[in-house]
């Protein structure tokens, strides 16, 4: 097993309710390797098994067959070792905690002192431009602001692997693009590896160093496309290279779905 891989998946399979009439094979024969500091987007048809893959990587469910290692350990060990920062499609904030106390949550579980976690949570909220909203409750924040709190929370303990499941799916186009730029900024400033699930081709291209295209169920990685944009600023979206990569991903996705 190569030591320089953050994530290594070989022959992964996941069947829900195996042996029963409602058995569903969501993932079959899936291979994927991710190096440190990569930003890998996973794109694929709806219901193909993207969230399932993320939950397998996160050690929240067990694979039916195959190998999966995170930093050279099993997903369970990595979960118990708190290697992961997870961001779900819904922000998943605790309604009864203020923004800052939501960000503090993982630090609390890791036994940080009150002073230290306050300080870190403040820094993280500032990083996502919410410094002024520390004592607001989720109900007092917009959807985009809640999602930013959720990202700050996932980043607060500097996980080695950030797992994001369509985190910007519920946002409007403008907020979405703004959040993408923010996420890239954070990714550059921290030493995090990101696995990012999305339905949006331009989003995948703009963010990623590599796009993995999944096949319909039972899912495997059907194609991997390296993305090599010279820079990633809001202007990048209007460049020729960007359009070229977007249409490449689109054609790949279409051919995969057509199989």
């Amino acid at each position, binding site marked *: 097993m190569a030591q320089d891989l953050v994530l290594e998946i070989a022959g992964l399979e996941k069947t829900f309710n195996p042996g029963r009439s409602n058995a569903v094979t969501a993932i079959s024969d899936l291979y994927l390797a991710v190096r440190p500091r990569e930003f890998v987007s996973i794109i694929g048809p709806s219901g193909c098994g993207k969230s399932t893959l993320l*939950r397998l990587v996160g050690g929240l469910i067990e694979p039916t067959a195959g190998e999966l290692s995170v930093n050279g350990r099993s997903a369970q060990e990595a979960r118990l070792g708190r290697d992961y920062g*997870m961001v*779900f499609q*819904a922000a*998943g904030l605790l309604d*009864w905690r203020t923004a800052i106390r939501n960000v503090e949550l993982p630090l609390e579980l890791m036994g940080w002192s009150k002073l230290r976690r306050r300080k870190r949570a403040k820094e993280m909220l500032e990083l996502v431009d919410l410094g002024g909203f520390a004592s607001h*409750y989720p*109900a007092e924040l917009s959807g985009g602001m809640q999602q930013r709190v959720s990202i700050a929370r996932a980043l607060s303990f500097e996980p080695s692997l950030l797992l994001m499941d369509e985190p910007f799916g519920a946002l409007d186009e403008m907020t979405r693009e703004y959040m993408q730029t923010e996420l890239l900024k954070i990714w550059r400033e921290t030493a995090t590896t990101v696995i990012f699930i999305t339905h949006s081709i331009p989003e995948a291209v703009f963010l990623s160093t590599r796009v993995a295209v999944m096949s319909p169920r039972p899912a495997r990685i059907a194609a991997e496309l390296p993305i090599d944009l010279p820079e990633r600023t809001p202007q990048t979206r209007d460049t020729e290279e960007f359009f070229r990569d977007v249409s490449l991903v689109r054609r790949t996705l279409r051919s995969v779905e057509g199989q």
Partner: protein
Amino acid sequence: MKFLRGGAWLPPTVFGAGALGLWELVLWLTDPEGFVLPRPSEIAIALGENVSEVWMASRVTGFIILSGLAGGVVLGAVAALVVIRFRTANETLTPLAVAINAIPIIALAPLFNNWLGITSPRSNQAVVVLLVFFPVFINTARGLSEVDDEQIELMQSYAASDWRIMRTVRIPNALPFFFTALRLVASLAVIAAIVVEYFGGRQDTLGNIITQNAQFTRYDVAWAAVVAGSIIGIALYFAALIVERLATGRYARATAEA
């Protein structure tokens, strides 16, 4: 803000006063035989004349209400925690709780009187506890279990233990459910305690004042005891409300305004 919330008292107060006035006026105008329904003023006078007797009875009945309420609430909340935490407990305790709830518990009062002694407060307390238990149990259990799957998975991704998830996610999530039940059972406990006293037992209770005086057509005195019971019920309701405000604090206000 404070002023506005104070203003919320105004409509029910005006309505209540109006209803009492109308009650007084109609009886004064029609003047039925007089003993069917006493006028508010007659009840007030009866209350004044029997104030020490009603006060002593309120203390006796109030003790049953408070202790039964406390017992039922604690048992209900603890049972809910155990049931959600341990699946086997769920499979045995929940059907048991449903079975208890299906029993017309107040109808058991004479039996409890036989078992636990008619003059002992134990039988009255037992009925109140049983009656209070179920709504608290069911509501709290629902609040503990109706938690966002993603919040649970998030906690698991932080390697949080089941007890930690209970403390950090499930219990805070259940608080509004619990307090809804608390307000409900505050009134239920008053009704239960007084009705149980109709079946006999000590003389110096609100229930007994009502039955004895109704028997001798002293309806105004019976009503005075009913008023005392209402006051206890209203006081308990607001006490529950205050505890809820203290427990959920600024969060409740923030969500109510959003």
